[in-house]
């Protein structure tokens, strides 16, 4: 689905060639500062390679409109920003940015259930904890129903138990709708248990790639 051809971004990453497959869960692991977030940003065109090219379904990203591409390849950022307002506002804001219709409260409540947030839709977001904000940002993403999910440490603020449930929900969601996930995680457990492919990033380069068969579907 994605193909890197001799990509460099400044002095930060140097990726001669590698692919990311469609309909799979690909996990990037590596020390902080190794370039994982930079790789994700290359995938959704938040940045463009300073050398080489990134292909999406065989087409150079340069030739694809950035905004439309980001609506299809949506990213959960490392420290997702929550917008001032209520939980409903924050769930709907992605739809608004994508110029889509707001979701009904019924749909929003289902999302809250999925992300295990037992709060009122009208509750202000200011008092949410870090973990709750992270799940809210995830809910915002699910509503957008994109083809590809880029998840930058999606469970960094969650406790082990919640992490397990949320990631499991995500993977199931993605399989039912046949989507692609590319995520960054520091959790060995999550990486081993839910990935199809694990890519190890070291100082801006790919240090290893491993297919994992642990998951049965």
């Amino acid at each position: 689905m994605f193909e890197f051809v001799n990509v460099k971004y400044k002095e930060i990453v140097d990726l001669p060639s590698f692919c990311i497959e469609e309909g799979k869960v690909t996990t990037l692991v590596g020390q902080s500062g190794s370039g994982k977030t930079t790789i994700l940003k290359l995938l959704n065109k938040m940045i463009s390679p300073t050398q080489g090219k990134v292909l999406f379904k065989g087409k150079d990203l340069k030739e694809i409109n950035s905004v439309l591409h980001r609506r299809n390849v949506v990213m959960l950022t490392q420290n997702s920003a929550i917008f001032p307002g209520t939980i409903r506002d924050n769930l709907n804001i992605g739809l608004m940015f994508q110029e889509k219709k707001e979701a009904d409260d019924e749909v929003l409540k289902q999302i809250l259930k999925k992300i295990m947030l037992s709060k009122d839709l009208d509750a202000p977001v200011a008092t949410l904890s870090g973990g709750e904000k992270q799940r809210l940002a995830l809910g915002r993403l699910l509503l957008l129903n994109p083809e590809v999910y880029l998840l930058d440490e999606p469970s960094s603020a969650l406790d082990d138990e919640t992490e397990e449930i949320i990631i499991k929900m995500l993977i199931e969601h993605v399989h039912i709708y046949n989507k692609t996930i590319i995520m960054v995680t520091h959790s060995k457990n999550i990486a081993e248990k839910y990935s199809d492919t694990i890519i190890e990033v070291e100082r801006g380069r790919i240090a290893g790639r491993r297919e994992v068969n642990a998951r049965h579907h």
Partner: protein
Amino acid sequence: MHGIIDLTIFQILLAYIFVLILLAIVKARGIKREKEIIIASLRMTLQLVLVGYILVYIFNNPSPFITVLIIFIMESFAIYTVLKRFSEGLFPAFKRVIVFSMSTGTIACIFYFLFLVVQVSPWYDPQYFIPIAGMLIGNSMTGISLGVKSLLEGMKTQKNLVEEALVLGATPQAATKKIVDDSFDAAIMPTINSMLGMGIVFLPGMMTGQILSGTAPTTAIAYQIAIMLGILGAVALSVFVMLQLGYRTFFNKEDQLFYDLF
């Protein structure tokens, strides 16, 4: 209606008593500001005397060339003042936007005001052109400064929200809408506030000047109302153009934020 009392040199000298009083106060209290007070008083006097003679000359020799030259000087000075104030935060593309919005916004309003509202003839009559241009340019300068400050601060402090909006699929315009709207608000609020207080909290300088020099208060007020609306138009237009073009300079053609800018 009484005539105008021409102030004699002696009468003006009497007014300098106020400076002496101020000097006495700061001296007595040990505030080290004597030098600044003296320089400010001297500069104020010299600059105004100079401008007075220049204006006498210009009024006696009206010429389109001189009028245009003066507008150009005022405009350049105003733009220079804004650019200098933000010298560190501005990148070249944004500087160009400031120059463009200041000049087009004010010039469009000046011409509209003089030709359609006041209907001056000849069009370059310096007696109208110069003070009106001065007021519109001066107020736009303040408005643009506030707008630029608010836009730069907004893009800096809310960069994470802008980035978040982009990754969710927002256009740069949608991602910066709140910052741009807040900046517009910040830029035009002083003008709106001064309209609210007009005539009650203070008499504006232009009107005071006209009344002192013998114009009927009703005429002075008619001018004041018109000029106030002209100022509102010039501030709003130049700030609007600045913001509409300005937010875009934070993004490249690929709708990516310039990370190196801030």
